[in-house]
């Protein structure tokens, strides 16, 4: 009895081509499935996204460092060149702030005594987490940023993100080491706000431009150009009173707002854990 030697079978070229095409078809199917799952906010797609961003965040943090250094050097040079003007400005501001401080102390004392008379339950204090922005701010269709901190640092979904100038956006995805911030200007962003002077409540809606607009304003609203807009606290996601922006145009029923905070210039942001 003779034993037949096994022989290697080489795939002819059409077979290889077929395999290649099958691979591409598989990837297209996978991408389409992901697209649908992502649209439906499927948890598996969200997990995949956060896993990828967790891996990408440290790489982007390193890649952003030279630009951060360049930006800081530019800011330092600007500050140095304006040292004299800034000194005069700060001296004047200091005089003004000292007057405000004495007024605030008086009001604080009065407030404390009135609160004790009424037995008011003191509001809970919010806590803050500081994180660094590590990614660019999206693209033509999405305005969002990645920060280098996640659930491991205590960041939670829907928390407000601010810098020293005001509100930047809110956390929409949280991974272990990264979190995505939806900026105020994004088309999907909706923030309950109130105008400071006329006390008109509305929703600040992003439209992928630099100027989000106020929606659902009451008929005959008295909002005027130059009015400050702050968060209203409605809905319990954002703490009330965070500065958002200033009304820059009121025309044809559209009220445009210029946000105070420019996310592009922010290196670090504060993420507020709102004790509602």
């Amino acid at each position, binding site marked *: 009895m003779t034993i037949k030697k096994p022989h290697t079978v080489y795939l002819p070229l059409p077979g290889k081509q077929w395999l290649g095409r099958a691979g591409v078809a598989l990837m297209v199917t996978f991408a389409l499935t992901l697209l649908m799952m*992502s649209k439906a906010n499927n948890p598996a797609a969200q997990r995949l996204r956060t896993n990828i961003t967790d891996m990408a965040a440290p*790489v982007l943090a390193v890649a952003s460092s030279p630009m951060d250094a360049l930006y800081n050097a530019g800011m330092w040079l600007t500050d140095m060149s304006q040292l004299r003007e800034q000194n005069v400005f700060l001296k004047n501001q200091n005089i003004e702030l000292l007057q405000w401080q004495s007024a605030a102390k008086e009001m604080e004392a009065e407030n404390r005594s009135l609160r004790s008379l009424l037995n008011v339950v003191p509001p809970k204090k919010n806590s803050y987490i500081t994180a660094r922005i590590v990614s660019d701010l999206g693209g033509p269709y999405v305005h969002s940023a990645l920060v280098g901190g996640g659930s491991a640092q205590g960041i939670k979904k829907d928390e407000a993100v601010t810098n020293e100038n005001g509100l930047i956006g809110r956390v929409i995805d949280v991974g272990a080491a990264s979190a995505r911030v939806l900026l105020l200007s994004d088309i999907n962003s909706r923030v309950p706000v109130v105008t400071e002077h006329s006390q008109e409540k509305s929703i600040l809606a992003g439209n*992928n431009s630099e100027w989000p607009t106020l929606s659902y304003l009451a008929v005959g609203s008295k909002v005027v150009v130059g009015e400050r807009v702050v968060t209203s606290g409605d809905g319990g996601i954002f703490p009330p009173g965070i500065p958002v922006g200033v009304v820059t145009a009121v025309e044809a029923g559209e009220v445009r707002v210029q946000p105070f905070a420019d996310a*592009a210039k922010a290196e670090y942001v504060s993420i507020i854990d709102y004790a509602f």
Partner: protein
Amino acid sequence: MIPAARRLELLFLAALPGLIATALAIFSLSCKHISGLSHFMPALPLIPIFYWGLTHSRDMPYWFVFALGLVTDAVTGLNLGLSSLLYMLFLKLLHMQRRYIHKEGFIVKWMYFAALLAVTDFLGGIAQSFFSPGSVHFGPAFLQWLLTVCFYPVLHKAFDGLDDYIHSRRWQILHGG
């Protein structure tokens, strides 16, 4: 028999186009602190995809552009899978016309890149408007397209030099030149 070190070098040379596309993607996605730039930042990774997809399609495989698209979507916040689909479509359309474009001069290649980018950008915009709650502005996307097309010649010339190096080095390793 090629020594192990030379084999590693061959592997590195084969991966170089992908590494360049990855580096450009990282640069595009990293923080730049310039107001407004992110909304029309040139789509730099598509330039090496086009260049090596046209000249040496083996060095720019579909699985790579799929993965690059997936990472781009995850980082930018686009719907997962959208950039993967668009990048694969870009490569497929390129491969379909490769035999006609390959021997043509720089200007024809540049024009074809601009046309291909316009098609994928337009489809991307349509898909995005389908997924968005409001109407999508095409202005920033047009500016992004324009800037990418303007950047193409600079990177094309740089890649010409790099491609010559890759192939002469490969020849030396394989044929002992």
